[in-house]
């Protein structure tokens, strides 16, 4: 499509406007984390020029950057120190993503390639597990977890996050496997390979793009999940979304600290997505079959 210079400029302006619209809240959140408390709510808002302070970060990470010393205590009596909570979030997000992907990949391959009685019902059943609002099962889950001793443990939270991600992951991955021609499996089976070898050596490398995309979704879900972490943990561990809420206390809200933790929490997710992104390329099956 040929555009006149005017149209090109208009298009660029529109694109930038949309990007700004989405990026601005993140930018403003970052500025809150480095503002002095008294400037956070100043009217008119200080968007670009303000006095900066690392105090919020120092408190959240329990480090001294040379301005002030020691830990502070929240207005409600809670703890500012959040490094272990970030670590909890990372462990839970990475492990639950890995668990969900390993199981879902195998399940999706089987559903894509093998025929068995009631297969369509089975796929529908998998999907149906996501139809109930999670809050409806939160309380029953609490009792189940208590009885099984899973409350307040890493593996408990990892398990529930993996479980929540599984249906979506299975269905997504199934569609990626469906895109890989069945003839490749058949050719390899005739060539003498076992099902598992076909899966591991031929199909899996071709499905990498889909697996990466699914992993990103699973990771983001676990990274931001609130309800189950809130109900199924007590003191042993807490993830970032849940501890963020503890900054809101009966005597006030520590906005600067909350923003500092939120800003810090963007980074691991960002790094994870960058790492898997290189697999998000299409055309891995190029050259295999003539369409």
């Amino acid at each position, binding site marked *: 499509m040929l555009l006149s210079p005017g149209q090109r400029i208009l298009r660029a302006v529109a694109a930038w406007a949309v990007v700004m619209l989405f990026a601005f809240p993140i930018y403003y959140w970052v500025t809150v984390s480095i503002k002095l408390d008294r400037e956070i709510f100043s009217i008119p808002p200080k968007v670009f020029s303000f006095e900066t302070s690392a105090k919020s970060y120092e408190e959240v990470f329990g480090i001294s950057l040379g301005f002030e010393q020691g830990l502070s205590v929240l207005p409600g009596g809670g703890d500012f120190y959040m490094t272990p909570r970030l670590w909890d979030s990372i462990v839970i997000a990475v492990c639950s993503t890995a668990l969900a992907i390993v199981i879902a990949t195998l399940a999706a391959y089987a559903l894509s390639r093998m025929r068995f009685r009631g297969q369509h019902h089975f796929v529908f059943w998998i999907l149906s597990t996501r139809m109930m609002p999670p809050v409806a099962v939160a309380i029953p889950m609490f009792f189940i977890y208590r009885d099984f001793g899973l409350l307040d443990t890493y593996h408990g939270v990892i398990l529930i996050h993996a479980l929540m991600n599984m249906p979506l992951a299975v269905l997504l991955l199934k569609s990626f496997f469906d895109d890989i021609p069945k003839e490749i499996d058949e*050719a390899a089976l005739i060539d003498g390979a076992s099902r598992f070898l076909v899966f591991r050596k031929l199909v899996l490398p071709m499905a990498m793009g889909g697996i990466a995309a699914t992993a990103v979704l699973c990771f983001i879900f676990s990274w931001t999940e609130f309800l189950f972490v809130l109900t199924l943990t007590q003191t042993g561990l807490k993830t970032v979304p849940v501890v963020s809420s503890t900054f809101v206390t009966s005597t006030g809200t520590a906005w600067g600290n909350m923003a500092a933790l939120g800003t810090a929490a963007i980074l691991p997710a960002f790094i994870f997505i960058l790492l898997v992104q290189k697999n998000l390329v299409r055309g891995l099956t190029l050259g295999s079959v003539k369409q």
Partner: protein
Amino acid sequence: MASVEYENVGKSFGPVRVMENISFTIADHRFVVLLGPSGCGKTTLLRMTAGLESIAEGEIRIGGERMNQVHPRDRDIAMVFQNYALYPTLKVYDNIAFSLQVRKHSKVEIRKQVEWAAELLNLSPYLDRYPKELSGGQRQRVAMGRALVRHPQVFLFDEPLSNLDAKLRGQMRYEIRRLHDRLQTTTIYVTHDQIEAMTMADDIVVMRDGNIEQIGTPEEIYDRPANCFVADFIGSPSINFLRGEVRGDGGVPAFQSGSVALPLPANNAAAPGQAVICGIRPVDVSVAAEGDVRAEVVLVESTGAESHVLLSVDGQELRAVVQGRYRAKPGEVCALKINPAALHLFDATNEQRIG
């Protein structure tokens, strides 16, 4: 190498019956083409032979051994797929070597075999490339190389040339047949292209709607088609059919259709008065100044070396192939000569060959 036997093979997909009582034998070393239109069951039969579809009814034997419960990898067959199905993440070398690698052959042996196959198929310069870096014809050859290195008892080809352009198809046709003459491996080749069948096969199995219509050498199928379907499917341009009846006046049997009367050989098996369909191949119709039949020219198509003339005889369409150029305008009237020895008579009710 081995023979392949089919005995009462049947198949249904759910409520759909796709194959009924297929029985025939492919002798050792033969090149057999399964020919038929889409949906006739030829690919299903091939996939059952390969073990990719279950053999629900009947029995398939390779080398005398019952294959019904045998895993594809243990049938000692190799298959070339219509869409090649190369392994895109492996280089050409590993694509060809894959079957030997999973069967744990020694590295030296594998290299020897792959190089032999690559040499045979002119793939030696491409062994380090990925499938996506190859042209269609080269990919096709890699798929064949993958089958060759195993020295299987039976080769199975599933419309391997249908994705190639016409020129390449002609060349690969010749190469596959030459390869078979050299290796002598029993081959089953599925196609819907009658030219491929005629040029490559030792035997052709013509199929329709899950049934076998005729089995024979290309010459037998062309010269003595068993029914109207086979006659129509084989030969290009396709055969002409005239509906009429057999007359026996004065002891000389003749085929009569409207104003067209063609003498029949005295030994033909049709009864006088019988309603028949007369098949006449376009090459057996010649346009002449004087002749038995008057016709009107509808259309002339020139292919360069010959001309295909579409004619109208008493309202029935008739095609003739004329060598060289034939210049006539639509609507012109001409005369036809039809070779009486080349007529095929079919019963008008069941369309089966008479005599």
